[in-house]
């Protein structure tokens, strides 16, 4: 197991360096300058500003400088907000994004599992169909539509919840529902399928035959076994939450990282592009690692296959 994890961590670091290098060079291909009023700048001024930020050096030199600083933990300063540290900017933005992502994940997973289980247990009943309708809608209605409708009805019309801003628990409810909808839908469908499969297994029949109550069968055998594959979809879901909250952050005016990420690209703010991209990739890589490790723990076959090589 230790060797397995060690190997994974090394390949993770390599992946990270490749992402950093690729992003750097792709970013350099973006047209224009990173200065927000370039049409009002004269040639001389552009040269001077480029000098100031070291943008006149050949790209390979810039690359090595950047990587050197990166390895010592220095992400540089933003071009657009003159002189503010990239790490500070990411630091002050990550809170709301992380909170919202986690809350949506937890709420969405719980409700999703719950719906999936009920649908499977009441297979082919009204409840089953109802749940699946919810699931299909949850996947097919874009979350910004859900967000807009909630904002109008719950916020403006009925004034039940605050329309926007980030100022306490009440402010998190609508964005959480909007983001969690896709989690609920995905997990409910998945859980239902897995449950149905497990319910048809011989060991369930055995368990029932040896006289266990149906509650015990469901809780001890069915749900536990059906839950394992859920871990597979948790990885992509978490990543989707990290990057997919952008529109929701914008609609509900949440000071998160998503807006920074997109705007930095539009404004050619190189250090912020690098900082946010690397931050997201690092999270992504770590999530994948955790999922892999959990697999290793739950399913010995995967661990063995990894250990052999």
């Amino acid at each position, binding site marked *: 197991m230790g060797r397995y994890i060690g190997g994974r961590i090394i390949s993770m670091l390599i992946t990270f360096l490749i992402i950093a290098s690729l992003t750097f060079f792709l970013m350099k291909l973006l*047209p224009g300058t990173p200065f927000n009023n370039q049409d009002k700048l004269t040639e001389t001024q552009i040269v001077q500003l480029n000098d100031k930020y070291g943008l006149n050096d050949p790209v390979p030199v810039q690359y090595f400088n950047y990587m050197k600083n990166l390895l010592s933990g220095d992400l540089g300063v933003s071009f657009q907000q003159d002189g503010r540290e990239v790490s500070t900017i990411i630091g002050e933005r990550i809170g709301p994004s992380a909170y919202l992502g986690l809350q949506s994940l937890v709420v969405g997973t719980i409700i999703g599992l719950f719906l999936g289980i009920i649908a499977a247990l009441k297979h082919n009943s009204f409840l089953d169909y109802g749940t699946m309708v919810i699931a299909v809608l949850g996947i097919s209605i874009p979350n910004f539509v859900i967000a807009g409708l909630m904002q109008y009805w719950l916020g403006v019309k009925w004034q039940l919840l605050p329309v926007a*801003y980030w100022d306490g628990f009440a402010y998190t409810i609508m964005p959480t529902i909007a983001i969690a909808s896709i989690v609920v839908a995905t997990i409910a469908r998945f859980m239902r399928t897995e449950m149905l499969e497990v319910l048809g297994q011989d060991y369930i029949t055995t368990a029932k035959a040896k006289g266990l109550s149906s509650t015990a069968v469901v809780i001890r055998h069915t749900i536990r076994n059906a839950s394992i594959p859920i871990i597979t979809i948790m990885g992509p879901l978490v990543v989707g939450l990290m990057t997919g909250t952008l529109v929701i952050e914008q609609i509900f005016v949440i000071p998160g990282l998503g807006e920074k990420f997109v705007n930095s690209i539009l404004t*050619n703010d190189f250090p912020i592009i690098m900082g946010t991209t690397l931050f997201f990739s690092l999270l992504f890589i770590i999530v994948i690692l955790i999922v892999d490790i959990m697999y290793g723990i739950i399913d010995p076959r995967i661990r063995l296959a990894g250990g052999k090589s």
Partner: protein
Amino acid sequence: MKKSRWTLVLSLVLVLSVFLSACGGGSNNGGNSGGEGEGGSAEQVLNLTETAEIPSMDTTQATDNTSFKAMNQVFEGLYRLDENNEPTLGMAAEEPKEEEKDGETVYTFTIRDDAKWSDGSDVVAGDFIYAWHKALNPDTISPYASMFGTAGIKNGNAIITEGDPLYGKVEELGAKAVDDKTLEITVENQVPYFKSLLTFATFYPQPEAYAEEQGDKFALEADTMLYNGPFVFSEWNHGEGWTYEKNTEYWDADTVNLEKITTKIVQDVATTVNLYETGKIDRAGLSADFVDQFKDNEEFSTLVDPTMYFMRLNQGTEALANKDIRKALYLAYDREGLVNVLLNNGSIAAKYFVPKDFVKGPEGDDFREFAPDGFYADQGEEEAKEAWKSGLEALGKDSVELEFLTTDNELAAKIAEYAKDQFESKLDGLTITINKQPWKQFLELEDSGDFDISTGGWGPDYPDPMTFLYMFETDGEYNRMGYSSEKYDELVSGAKKETDEAKRWKMMQDAEKVLMEEDVAIVPTYQKGNAILQKDYVKNYYVHSFGADSSYKWIKIEK
């Protein structure tokens, strides 16, 4: 336990049915707005939104509207703009003494005794010099460094011109601190808008000792800067918003009514409108799609901006080198349809280039008054077709293909489609290909002349028609379309030097006439309007036609 499961499922179904019914419900915008704060005493608090973060609070580094607007509330130059966009005394105690010397004018300003920074220290003449030198120094150069030259301040241009013997020698600038309260400015080229320019952020002072002490951190956070304007920043949460509070050290604090102004960054227009309707904010900008919904609302109004939109016609191409072809495009375009349907926000159809309600001449009348409806005002489709015909004959062709370069934002794309339709339906044999590009790419293509027609917009940098007219001089940096007219160049450069106001004014009007009537060099389309909602209890919200977008100093809440 079973029961609670049921409740959960049921409540989810309920929530869902809300979405579904809302889908079909349409928008019957009810009148339940302003549910908050009814009948409360007139608390002097204003709640606003902005669409972008403040990129910089360093007066020498900012380039964008959000920054300039914020700075106008917390800093102050020698003058500030008043309700009528006229410069009124700010840090200057009185109008300066003027003295002519060797063809130069020396202005001696006295700074108010009670001009203070928010920490209680005095605003001194050296603070102005410090900031101005910083703006011109090649190491810390301001994107607006050219403003010193524009204001006519001695050596302002030379200091930022590479290769000039004075390049980088900031101490050669015609501005010096005689003593703590006396600032002397030497002007080598008098311009009528000199005092108005001094209201601009580039001419604000910076607290020298404090800024040096803060170093790199200066003006990055609310607590790493000092304020000398009507308000201070009490909070600045980057990316989220900022809060102003009344500056008790401000010399004119008695005039300032507002105690607090909150500003949140909201990019989504629908959210802005929803916040306005629930009374969370007091003023909201509307996009065209919301105008119809609020048109009849008492709180709705439109404002005209001195920002012009137009099409550059690349005169380096064979077809557009022909004046008749250009004239045909100019006349074929129905501007009314554009402003009434597509924009729908108070924008004005324009057959002129220097905007309305922007600057007044020596006689006190608006620049536009010499040709209020613009040029070729009474001509339309018929004349367009005639011009097109003779243009095609001259070219010896029966069809022309033109590329229309535009940016990729939603509105620009709609406007481009509209233009294509206008041109193609009225001018036989014309095919327009639309080339949509991201902003930066657009600029590069336009700069290198890689287009036939391109969309452009221009807002003033200083209150004078010259801020528009100088663009199309032969070597003008913003010409970009190969337009060259000796007559135009002569008039524009003549007007730049002319000191007689009436003559200068006439020259600029003639220049516009050459550009538009004689040469039909561009196709102006509209002057920008803004549709806004503002609560009726907000009084004295003054909007400016150049520089900072608005002033909060005089705002009052009357509930």
